[in-house]
């Protein structure tokens, strides 16, 4: 055990600090929240990637660097310290596509996802299927290519496509996305978990309609509704086999729950640092408690990423981490109110946004159900 940086880690941290400082404090002034952040997130992603500071632990083949997982925590810590935005939280999509997609799909889509040149969204939730995701009703129906006869050289099924109909909701960043990792029902006649398949669907085609939402803090670029009405997806863009959509969804939501994957500890670290620098005189106890919590999360991410060196498999433990992360964000939200009251629009916005953390990625109630039944085995 040694929490200190190894020489290689220290060298990486130094390089990162230099880069963050060299951006002339630009990294610090880069918007880290609100509409401005979401609008410029792609730019930030590409800058980070271009400088060699993103996709650290992912395979080289797809543009990663195959560094040990703990480099991600160094990244989070330094971004928070510099007041820069968090790293883009893509880990769960990379894991989902990486684990379930064919070699062909991985080669085609992972590099653009990792380097930030292509934007993605996740189309799982529906108006009638939130916590109970398996009840979703969006359909993808196989049709053979409807080109005119003789149009295509061969008719070996290569131009088979699925046609998508349905209504997705709460889809984050759908307005800027090029691609959607979509979960749809391909077989209505089997038990509901088994009739689902996953697809990589282009968001830039007829039959895809966007309806943005305004969140309660006023931002309009976080999530929206997406209506699929006859959108098409080539059959070879199915991820995994037909009926394996649920397995992919579970991989994704498992990783989506982990602060180590999401890099959010940087966001809370930055908020708490901002709040500390704004307080004059004695520190409100809400803020000190938020500081203690952010330290806990930082150290927790260090422990979790260290454990990955042993190849610890992912299971329901992600739900524990999601709860911890949620408490940290919501404590920091309360600290923002304690420091800024309701008159500071940024701090009010941070507070209001913090309420979403116990809903997105599976609600806190659902995380507790998972912990109670799958880890504590309490029955029910």
């Amino acid at each position, binding site marked *: 055990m*040694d929490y200190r940086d190894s020489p290689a880690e220290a060298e990486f941290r130094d390089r990162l600090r230099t880069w963050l400082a060299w951006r002339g404090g630009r990294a610090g002034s880069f918007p880290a929240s609100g509409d401005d952040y979401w609008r410029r997130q792609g730019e930030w992603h590409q800058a980070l990637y271009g400088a060699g500071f993103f996709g650290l632990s992912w395979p080289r083949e797809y543009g990663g660097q195959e560094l040990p997982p703990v480099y991600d925590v160094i990244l989070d810590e330094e971004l928070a310290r510099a007041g820069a935005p968090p790293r883009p939280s893509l880990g769960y999509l990379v894991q989902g596509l990486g684990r379930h997609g064919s070699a062909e799909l991985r080669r085609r889509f992972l590099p653009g996802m990792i380097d930030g040149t292509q934007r993605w969204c996740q189309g799982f939730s529906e108006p009638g299927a939130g916590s109970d995701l398996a009840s979703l009703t969006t359909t993808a129906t196989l049709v053979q290519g409807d080109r005119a006869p003789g149009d295509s050289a061969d008719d070996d099924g290569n131009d088979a496509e699925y046609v998508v109909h349905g209504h997705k909701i709460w889809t984050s960043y759908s307005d800027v996305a090029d691609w959607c990792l979509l979960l749809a029902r391909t077989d209505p006649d089997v038990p509901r978990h088994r009739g689902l398949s996953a697809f990589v669907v282009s968001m830039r085609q007829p039959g895809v309609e966007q309806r943005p939402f305004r969140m309660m803090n006023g931002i309009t670029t976080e999530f929206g509704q997406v209506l699929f009405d006859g959108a098409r997806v080539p059959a070879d863009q199915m991820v995994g086999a037909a009926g394996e959509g649920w397995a992919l969804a579970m991989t994704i939501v498992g990783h989506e729950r982990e602060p180590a994957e999401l890099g959010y500890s940087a966001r809370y670290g930055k908020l708490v640092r901002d709040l500390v620098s704004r307080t004059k005189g004695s520190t409100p106890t809400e803020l000190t408690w938020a500081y*203690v919590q952010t330290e806990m999360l930082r*150290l927790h991410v260090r422990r979790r990423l260290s454990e990955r060196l042993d190849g610890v498999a992912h299971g329901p433990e992600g739900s524990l981490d999601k*709860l*911890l992360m949620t408490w940290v964000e919501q404590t920091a939200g309360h600290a923002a109110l304690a420091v800024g009251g309701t008159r500071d629009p940024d701090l009010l916005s941070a507070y209001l946004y913090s309420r979403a953390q116990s809903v997105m990625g599976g609600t806190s109630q659902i995380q507790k159900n998972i*912990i109670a039944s799958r880890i*504590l085995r309490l029955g*029910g």
Partner: protein
Amino acid sequence: MDARLSTEQRELRDAAARLAGDLGPGSVRDLADADRIARLEKAVAATGWRALRSDGASGVEVALVAEEFARGLVDVPFLGPVLAGDLRPGDAGDAQPWTISVRSEAIDARIQRVLAVRDGQILTARTGAELPGADLTRVSAEVIGPLEVAGQLSGEHAGRWLALALAVTSADMLGAARGAQALACDYARIRAQYGKTIGSYQAVAHPLAEGLALIEGSVSVLRHAAWAVDALAPPEAVRAAQIAKVYCARAALTICETSVQVHGGIGNTWECLAHVYLRRVLASAELFPVGLEEIDCGLS
């Protein structure tokens, strides 16, 4: 950067857990079983773990044993002698243990000889009459003179010692919380009402799920603090330990209170072990207490 325990550390933890499981009190009635306590005392003395610090073990090892001993409600002295050992390095050959005094009270006072720290000096004294306290597994006592100077304590050593004391009392709370959590989960799996086990009700299950998350968070802060005792400069080590103490204290109190609640009526009786864990947490929170106002949120 590596936050994992070594193989030896895991083995030490498992050995401490086994000892506590075999000879710690399994019920409130066991607390009065003098034969058991004598066997436990002999076993703990034989391990030499009270001298871990004077033998040069790190804060991490001491914290692991403290955590497992609290989880098993070990009711013979450990924290006192191990902290005394830090003040008397090289004293391992001395078979009779020492304990320490904190704010003029001897802790773990089933031991006669006491070390006190005052104004950079280490003083020897003796334990006197027992004092009232919450803890049913450890006693405190008055400190009686004559006080004799036994050595000097450098500022650096005093800082490290404080960090160690904060880390091991945090470990003690974490261990007790884990014990209380396990007790409550066991009960929730078997107690049935309305034809179903109570653990199947979300109103019971969710606080227990929260308890497990709090335990994981506590493990993460505590491990860093225990490592920092020896690896960081004393002011930083103390800071890490204060954070651990504040976090673990809040978490442990919540978990123990949940354990009482999940047990219903029986949880409010003397016979249920839930209050024994709760009392131990209260006592360890009060030993070297840390308030939020002492935490420095400084921007490094």
